[in-house]
């Protein structure tokens, strides 16, 4: 059984946000209008955060794409009174939209702020609805939503493999963000398959001392791994800046 995970190489990421639009397109994320930004209610299942470091002229803008961390011990799960958020056997932290009653406890308990509440009924002009992905539900007002590693793609690939009476092939499925990312900064795959791209990348990066996870010390065991950015001006290990 696969255990899905993601590796994001910050030395490759250029902050272009192709991943963000690809995710919006794939997952029917509503258009983030100007109003929504003013209300601080923009929804972005993957977002690219920009951090400043240093001062002009030695200033750095650092980029970090942030999807749901898919924690193995997810703090958002036990607080849901209706079990709308649960863990799949393949390690994905899932959200059942039609079970969610909008208490937002999960959002409060998520340290990474990757759960989004639908304050409004999502709206598209009629013609733009033609683009909506039929594999993904449109979430209604009053429910939480979040990145689920494009689970519909995974399910489709697994069903296809089943019909063809074979096991899922290594790296047969990927997420929309990883597919779009022009620099190959995002790689998705099965962490338990030693031949998968993510496993190989992690093994290699582990040797280089580049692997870390966001807020790792909280012990939630995220399945999104970051590879440290390399900076010619940085001091030697364990240089860590933010």
């Amino acid at each position, binding site marked *: 059984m696969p255990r899905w995970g993601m590796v994001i190489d910050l030395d490759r990421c250029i902050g272009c946000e192709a991943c963000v639009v690809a995710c919006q397109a794939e997952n029917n994320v509503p258009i983030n209008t100007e109003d929504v930004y003013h209300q601080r209610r923009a929804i972005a299942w993957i*977002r690219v955060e920009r951090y400043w470091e240093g001062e002009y002229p030695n200033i750095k803008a650092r980029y970090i794409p942030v999807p749901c961390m898919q924690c193995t011990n997810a703090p958002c799960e036990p607080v849901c009174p209706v079990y709308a958020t649960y863990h799949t056997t393949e390690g994905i932290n899932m959200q059942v939209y039609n079970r969610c009653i909008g208490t937002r406890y999960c959002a409060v308990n998520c340290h990474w702020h990757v759960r989004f509440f639908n304050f409004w009924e999502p709206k598209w002009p009629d013609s733009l609805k033609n683009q909506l992905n039929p594999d993904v539900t449109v979430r209604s007002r009053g429910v939480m939503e979040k990145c689920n590693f494009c689970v519909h793609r995974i399910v489709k690939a697994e069903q296809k493999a089943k019909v063809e009476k074979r096991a899922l092939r290594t790296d047969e499925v990927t997420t*929309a963000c990883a597919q779009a990312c022009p*620099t190959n900064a995002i790689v998705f795959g099965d962490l338990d398959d030693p031949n998968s791209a993510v496993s190989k990348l992690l093994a290699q990066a582990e040797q280089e001392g580049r692997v870390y996870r966001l807020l790792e010390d909280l012990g939630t065991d995220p399945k999104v791994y970051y590879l440290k950015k390399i900076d010619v001006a*940085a001091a030697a290990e364990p240089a860590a800046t933010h």
Partner: protein
Amino acid sequence: MRRREFLKVAATSATGAVLFAGCGRIGDGVPETEFKIAQPVHTPNDWVYGRDAWFATAAPPDQGGYGLIVRVFEGRAKKVDGNPDFPGIAGKSDARAQALVQELYHPDRIAGPQRAASRGSGQFQQISWDSALQEVAQVLRENGGDRAVLITGRPSSSQAAIINAFRQATGIRHAILEPDEFVVLRTAMQRLFGTSMLPYPDLGNAPFLLNFSADFLHGWIAPVALARAYGEFRQGRPGKRGLYYHVGPRLSATAANADRWFPITPGTEGLVALAIANVLLTEGSIPADTFRPYLTALGIDETRLTSEFTPERAAETSGLNAEQIREIAHALVEHQPAVVIAGTSAAAATNGFFNLVACFGLNLLLSNLNQPGGLLLNPDPPLAELRVPQDAVLSERQWAELFEQVRAGSISTVLVYRANPVYSLPPAVGATDALRAAQHVVSFSPFFDETTQLADFVLPDLAWLEQWGLQVPDPGPGYATVAIQQPVVQPFVDGRAFGDVLIQLAQQLGHALPWGSQEEATKALAVQLRRLSGGSVPGANDKEFLVHLQAQGGWWSEQLRGSATTPATRITSPRGPEFIGDTSQYPSVLLPYPSHTLGYGELAHLPWLQGLPEPISTNVWQTWLEVAPRTADELGLTTEDVVRLTTPQGTVELPVYVNPAAQPGVIAIPFGQGHTAYGRYAEGRGVNPLTVVAPQTDPDTGTLAWSATRCRIEKTGRRMRLARFEGNVPAFQLEEFPIVRVMAPSA
């Protein structure tokens, strides 16, 4: 519709090849048997219930023209991605390509041909295609030939072939409107290396990149191919990591990824390049005879280079110190084969052409042309018909002349296709007045943009994903590449492909063009590729060839490569930048910059792109001014204070974004907004920086120098909320939990 007609439509229009499907009838639509059994009556012809189809097509020319695949489900395009087989991009794409479906299903697409109630009234009424074509043909009969001009944006390669045939048949002049920086870039490539095709920096193999101002990861020439190569440059080679230095006036999102950023005064890129050449020569790190073509191009000799263009002299104007310049020069020598590129604001100065020649010319000194890890020159399109005529691309100066002729009445008919001169040219060029004065204006735009608002007739083009075409990516990956564009869905509105309309108009005027439709032209040109050497597409006959071409999404031949020539005569001379406005009144330099998603405003109608945070400020849906913290302190400004920006050209009021990376003395402002028309998502937000840019040109090319205006800002006392992503998600500073971890290369 009768069954026979129905089959004809299905076979000739929107059913292209299903990629990777291995279907034996690719290109001919769904097999006939399926129609009999399953085709419902009121659904699109290519409706396949509940099954995904992936069609190969091509990105628009201004996005790089590379191969795409589009997921189509039940007759509707759902998702755009890069074509995994396509050279240079390997399945990758960007936000702009992803947003192509929003152009297709845009609620403000023009539904069908229109006639204006009266010019400029903004009131249009729908008419039939027959009468639209007849009336426009009548206009061309009376006011065609040399009394008419066809203004287009950069056409696709197959559109260029149709336009050319149309031009030859009717005598109508063709003028191409491209962003000024690209005009300068192409002219520089033409005169420096003998090709107007753009070069490709082979980053995947380069140990070192020196970039002068080009925003190459975010919108410049071929962002997807270059970003993919950048990923390889950084982490694609075990044990080797490419080093990237950026010299430029603004910490663009591209500069933010550099290992070192050297902020300079806008427009001094060329002088810094010369000072680098000076170091290389005086220190003897590069053989002296290598310098000959470089010095020839710039019209200087060794003595002048060594005496006048010292790092110390360059330091006085550029804002760098001599040590930094030496450091860059040494890095170039240490990390061979290094590659040097330049563009964006470097090209938009009053010495833009000189800047590009001086910077790109460094590649000659490094002897890296067409070498792995160097600057790869691209060959001309493999078929002469696919060349976009470079002489049709007009400079700012030539636009002013053209519009003067329109105003004077010697040109009475203006046809406009996917170009928006009213918005994209500075007001001083006089596009608006000219269009008002013209006797007839016909637009082929699928949207009511500013120029289309002034048209008498609108014959709306199809969306990009609804048309046939061939596209030569520019730049290609260093060898001949052609992408095939095919409709992935049936037209969503009653538009017609621009090429079809030109062919039909020519017919009405009594000229038969060589092809009956844009599709026919595409296929006729495509099969000619079969006869060229080394092509990647198999096919025992033309039909089979086409099937494979459509399934693969393109044709390429690694045997057809670009060749380099070096300049034998002087093409420019060293010059510093000039600015309009005196320093006492206008202490700062105004530095507009193209938006990473909206470009120069041509993509402002797509809501995904409007809502995508600008990577440095994270602002969305607006125009803002970027000022340095020091400037903000001096003027008592904070983010969201509205300031009055004054240049010798005019005044606008805009909210401030205090940008910690902004250079004191440089006020940056993004292009992209300020549309007065162009659909609900673009209209009425922000300002177009061109309204305050002085109409100053680069004497070498006659193009607009949009980074050559001085300005001042004053506090108005008002505030305005700026929509911004920063802070949308609450952030806490936790000392023990660094977010972005960084390490030194050797660690």
